[in-house]
């Protein structure tokens, strides 16, 4: 590891000098590259999340250097898709698409976004020679930015599911380490940590994307289940998927009442108030749970990768890439590309990380002095190997997620059994896929 780190330092150093040499040799600089596009305004949708605040804080440097201004339109996550879809349908003002991994099939198939290579071919002068696309975690680049083997977007706001645990509570109960498997979490840690108004675990399950991404999918994969089989038929009634869904029902006894109304905010809050000992949440919440302003347990927070299931460690995967919009005019496309390239660059990754963002650059995590970011080892481990289709990424996801959200919460509430619920989701999901033409062979089975 040490050698690796030294080696990587060397690489960073080399590439640094390399860049300078290259820059002086070929004269590439952001300033010069942006010259023709000075005065261009780029419109982009941002969320109200830490990674976006981080880049916003860094933005003045970019605008100063390039003369390009970035017009940020802020939306909460739940509105961001609708807002962008309407804009693209109407041929609106957005020059950059902010793409959650589950939206990419949709955006790509509608040709609302331009493949990265096309932009680069069109404007060769704006491509940073130090772009180093291989430096992105391959899983992340592929899942967040790629569709059908074509890269559209560069990973920008990146998440992996992590296990946040309250070391103090665990130690009091006699545990010196977090659970290694989901089974242990339920059978060993669950009973020991639940009681007196305290709960072992909370799984955010509110009826929106949280239900399908954070709750439903999270119990499918580790148990060997999945949404679809190889023929794109529902796999939710398979023994493995059912084991996972039943596990969730069983685990609810160690969660607070009304967990179906918990979104991220409620879950993180329950953890920060010390009411819940463990949560599986996105890496981006790190800053919230360790800040004394928002957390009563700041000193006790530790982080581990998500527990393993019978099918291995299959942590939740989520995150956003930025891609150039096809509706933008030439100058806007070039300016948009320059911004995306800058925001996700190797050179800016460290500052982005320190300001609360989570970059997807492998190089930055090999640097020294990251001890304060306790989530890094678990994050890097989670991104080595994961399931890109953790939630299917095809164009039909927005419709399917609504179905999963409705019946997923009904299952949790006990209004239907796991089998009935899975059956309902399966039938409705297959209807959507049928209408989309997957079964008639009109469409390739890509997710």
């Amino acid at each position, binding site marked *: 590891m040490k050698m690796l780190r030294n080696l990587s330092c060397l690489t960073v150093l080399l590439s640094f000098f390399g860049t300078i040499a290259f820059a002086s040799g070929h004269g590439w600089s952001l300033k010069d590259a942006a010259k023709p596009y000075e005065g261009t305004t780029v419109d982009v949708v941002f*969320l*109200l*999340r830490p990674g976006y605040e981080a880049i916003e804080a860094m933005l003045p440097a970019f605008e100063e250097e390039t003369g390009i201004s970035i017009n940020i*339109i*802020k*939306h*909460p*996550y*739940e*509105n961001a898709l609708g*807002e962008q879809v*309407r804009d693209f*349908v*109407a*041929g*609106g003002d957005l020059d950059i698409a902010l793409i959650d991994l589950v939206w990419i099939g949709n955006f790509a198939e509608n040709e609302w976004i331009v493949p990265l290579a096309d932009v680069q071919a069109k404007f060769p002068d704006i491509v940073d020679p130090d772009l180093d696309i291989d430096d992105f975690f391959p899983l992340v680049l592929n899942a967040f930015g790629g569709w059908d083997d074509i890269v559209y977007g560069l990973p920008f706001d990146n998440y992996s599911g992590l296990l946040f645990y309250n070391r103090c509570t665990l130690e009091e109960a006699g545990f010196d380490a977090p659970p290694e498997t989901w089974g242990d979490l339920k059978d060993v840690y669950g009973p020991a940590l639940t009681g007196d108004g305290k709960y072992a675990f909370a799984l955010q399950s*509110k009826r*929106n994307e*949280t239900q399908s991404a954070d709750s439903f999918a999270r119990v499918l994969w580790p148990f060997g289940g999945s949404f679809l089989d190889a023929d794109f038929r529902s796999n939710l009634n398979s023994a493995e998927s059912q084991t996972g869904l039943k596990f969730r029902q069983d685990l609810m006894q160690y969660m607070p009442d009304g967990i179906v109304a918990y*979104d*991220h*905010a*409620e879950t*993180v*809050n329950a953890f920060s*108030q010390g009411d819940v000992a463990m949560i599986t949440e996105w890496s*981006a*919440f790190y800053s*919230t749970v360790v800040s004394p*302003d*928002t957390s009563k347990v700041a000193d006790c927070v530790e982080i581990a990768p998500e527990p393993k299931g019978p099918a291995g460690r299959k942590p939740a995967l989520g995150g956003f890439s930025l891609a150039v919009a096809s509706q933008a005019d030439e100058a806007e496309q070039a300016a948009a590309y320059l911004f995306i390239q800058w925001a996700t660059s190797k050179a800016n990754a460290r500052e982005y990380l320190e300001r609360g963002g989570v970059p997807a650059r492998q190089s930055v995590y090999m640097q020294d002095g990251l001890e304060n970011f306790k989530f890094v080892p678990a994050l890097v481990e989670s991104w080595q190997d994961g399931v890109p289709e953790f939630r299917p990424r095809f164009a039909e996801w927005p419709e399917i997620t609504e179905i999963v959200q409705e019946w997923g919460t009904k299952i949790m509430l006990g209004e239907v059994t796991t089998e009935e619920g899975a059956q309902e989701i399966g039938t409705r999901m297959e209807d959507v896929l049928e209408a989309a033409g997957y079964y008639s062979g009109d469409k390739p089975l890509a997710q």
Partner: protein
Amino acid sequence: MNSARALWPQIILLVVIITVCVFPFYWMVTTSLKTQIVALEAPPVWLFEPTLTNYFEALFEDGVLQTLINSLIIAICTTILSLILGVPAAFALARFEFRGKKDLWFWFITNRMVSPIVLALPFFLIARNLGLLDKHVTLVLIYLTFNLPIVIWIVTDQFRGIPYDLDEAARLEGASQITIMLKICLPLAMPGVAVSAIFSFIFSWNELMYGLILTRTDAKTAPAMAVSFMEGYNLPYGKIMATSTLIVIPVLIFALIASKQLVRGLTMGAVK
């Protein structure tokens, strides 16, 4: 009748009514003065050190001020427009005889019942083609769909409550219909006009769905802003309540000023 014994139940009832109406408002205001940690205290605290930070942040950092101004412009314009279009129409419906009058009246009222969800997307696409997205005028116009019916409904009833003898007399003296409406009937129908103005203002000020879909930044309305803090990631309760308070206060002032008219104008066709 007014013996003390008969008064007590009344007093208790009134106090209960006032408490129930005011308490949520009180709770909104006090929560808006709490920091996030205090706001999440369980059980909730009633006495705490108030802070205005939420208001400063909301108004000046997050741009709530601009959305309040937008809402004000839109609500006032659409109210005035509804009155200009609605009052003469109401006068005609109350005073003139013509074929299809009932159907016309019913058609006006029906517009009040159309769910915004029906019109939102078509309106979005039309507005986009005309370059009218994110403009105040778009909302002013679409708010007519629910304001004009309420104006016509209430004001028609008011006009009908005014005796004919008055305008007959004026007509014999040679006054035109416009003069009769403006000089004779309108002053007497003022309570109804005032009430419909209040309702137009309240409905427009409070509208969310169109505001969400048809605006983005320049014309973003205050309710759309309040909802946009609801990122599932983090719920800044104090700030949400501060924004809510800022939204409720202007319309409250407006409604309180006019509250005397409320009762006189809401007769809804109960003519003497």
